[in-house]
């Protein structure tokens, strides 16, 4: 039994267009997404804007309503629980958001911020509370001198540490990290990633790591799920997906990332076109309008995710995967000239 099991998750939003409900637009933010996270493991959800990764995170955190599908945590479905039961179960799932400043209430002191989850779920005396808060702060590299200050007095990196300390207060099993380092400088990002790694080792935490920076994802995750327009294009062990991407979108995504090694100047592989709207996604495979290997079947039928070589790929070409290790995306690469 995995720690977190997401099965067929679908989330829709309505955007009011007119006075009547009939004229509303429906955003298919997340469509039939499935994945699992084991204890102590890091699963990364990557994708570009509009792919639905943040919505998946919010659904797991019970901040967004799922239209269908199930989310099972520690074996129990979250949706079916009564509010009190759910509240107790959610103690074990905590979150760290992207913007360090806006995720901390500006008028509270660091002590009150980190103590808040403890105040909600337990009755500790002030002195014990303070001691526990201090030990949490020490875990993230802060100290007594920070206890009574307010968020605006700290740097982005420090605020993110405060947010992490707060997330650890209830000793969760799973921490959802929504782009935790995107708003930070490179050197600060490195410190936070190192900290997250240490904490994971020490406390046996599982991470659901949402990010758009593929280099960061590669360095922190055990497994990765690549999302496009609300669906998972490819999912599998991080090392494999990055070394030998199977889905054409993954290939394009990895190829677009500029390497900081100027000598590895293979030229960025340019994927043409823009991301289509999530209100009217393309029929069939949602990636087909931009896919260099698009076949007639891709326009007609959405590909079912199939298990190929140890991972899930949602692509009609996946059947061409042969056991010598060439994946469909890469195989087709050799026959199609560089796009740019």
């Amino acid at each position, binding site marked *: 039994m995995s720690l977190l099991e997401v099965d067929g998750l679908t989330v829709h939003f309505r955007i009011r267009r007119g006075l009547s409900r009939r004229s509303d637009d429906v955003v298919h933010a997340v469509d039939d997404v499935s994945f699992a996270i084991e204890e102590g493991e890091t699963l990364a959800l990557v994708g*570009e*804007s509009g792919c639905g990764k943040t919505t998946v995170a919010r659904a797991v955190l019970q901040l967004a309503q799922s239209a269908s599908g199930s989310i099972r945590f520690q074996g129990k479905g979250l949706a079916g629980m009564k509010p009190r039961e759910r509240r107790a179960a959610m103690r074990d799932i905590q979150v760290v958001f992207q913007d360090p400043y806006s995720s901390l209430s500006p008028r509270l002191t660091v002590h009150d911020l980190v103590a808040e989850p403890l105040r909600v779920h337990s009755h500790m005396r002030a002195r014990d509370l303070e001691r526990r808060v201090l030990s949490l702060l020490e875990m993230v590299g802060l100290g007594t001198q920070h206890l009574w200050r307010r968020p605006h007095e700290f*740097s982005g*990196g420090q605020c993110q540490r405060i947010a992490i300390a707060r997330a650890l207060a209830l000793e969760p099993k799973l921490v959802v990290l929504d782009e935790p380092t995107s708003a930070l*400088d*490179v*050197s*600060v*990002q*490195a*410190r936070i*990633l*190192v900290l*997250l*790694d240490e904490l994971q080792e020490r406390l046996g935490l599982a991470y659901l790591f949402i990010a*758009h*920076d*593929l*280099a*960061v994802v*590669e*360095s*922190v995750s055990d497994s990765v799920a690549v999302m496009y327009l609300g669906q998972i294009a490819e999912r599998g062990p991080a090392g494999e997906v990055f070394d030998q991407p199977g889905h054409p979108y993954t290939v*394009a*995504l990895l*190829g*677009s*990332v*500029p*390497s*900081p*090694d*100027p*000598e590895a*100047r293979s030229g*960025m*592989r*340019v*994927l*043409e076109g*823009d*991301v289509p709207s999530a209100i009217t996604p393309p029929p069939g495979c949602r990636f087909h309008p931009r896919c260099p290997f698009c076949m007639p079947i891709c326009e007609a039928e959405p590909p079912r995710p199939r298990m190929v070589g140890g991972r899930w790929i949602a692509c009609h070409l996946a059947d061409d995967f042969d056991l010598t290790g060439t994946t469909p995306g890469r195989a087709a690469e050799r026959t199609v000239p560089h796009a*740019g």
Partner: protein
Amino acid sequence: MGELLTVQDLKLEFRSMRGLVKALDGVNLRVHEREILGLVGESGCGKTVTGLAILGLVQRPQAEITGGEIRFRGENLLERSETAMQRLRGREISMVFQDPLASLNPVFQVGDQIVDVVRVHKGVSRKEAKETARRALAAVGLPPQDETLKRYPHQLSGGMRQRACMAMALACGSPLLIADEPTTALDVTIQAQILNLLLDLRESLGVAQVLITHNLGVAAQTCDRIAVMYAGTVVEEGPVAVVLKHSRHPYTVALYECLPHGRTASELKTIPGTVPDLIDPPSGCRFHPRCDHAFDACATAKPRPVQVGERHWVSCFWAEQQGGTRPVEAEA
């Protein structure tokens, strides 16, 4: 390839509620014709301020340039009057910014905005200006039809908006473009498109560029030379392969090693300490409190740029000690 733009020892301060911020403390850089120079650094290092200062767009009286020169085609821009600077902006030096949505007026059609720029600088008829606008759109990879000209900014996607801004910037044929984080707000696949476009523009139009970014990958794949900034100075400037892979400055080395590319989280290196407060910066070399190789001189005097190779300068006493002006073999 001659020098198109030379910034020499540029100093800038601005007044804030808490005191005087010494934002730029001697910035030195060179941009040659048809060259793409990357201006890289973390937040607060002064890269955007430098870009704005070149165009004379720093807010007076809060901000003040207190020293140095900005030479464009031999002429010191700091001595130009504001009217003369207005003639220069958009015509000889153009700029695109991070958020294309904020750079375009939402109530005007994109075509009209480009036409406006052309007419202001070239004084031609509306019809001619429209032709120029169409050519500008084609140059940036947008369909040069009237359909595109008639669009409003919110009807375009992020990538297309940024292209429109670049069309506006290059419509009058500026030889130098300053791009301030032009792809930071874009998705990585769109970013690749825009970066390729920048390279393209250099090939087809011969536009030299200053590419301001905090992303070393962007700089590595797009720029010919880069200038690394820290706390208001350029600490190293040179060919991109040399500066990134064979750097002579401790900060550049440390920064490169912080990158997660190809490293697992436990392998990541970090830089001890924090970015200095520019109201009360460290004495001498501003990086010395965080530097592994700092010695006495570093705290007392500010290192000046010393040439350590072909078009490669470093501002660091330790680097000087290690072997100052030995020329480095030119990289391919």
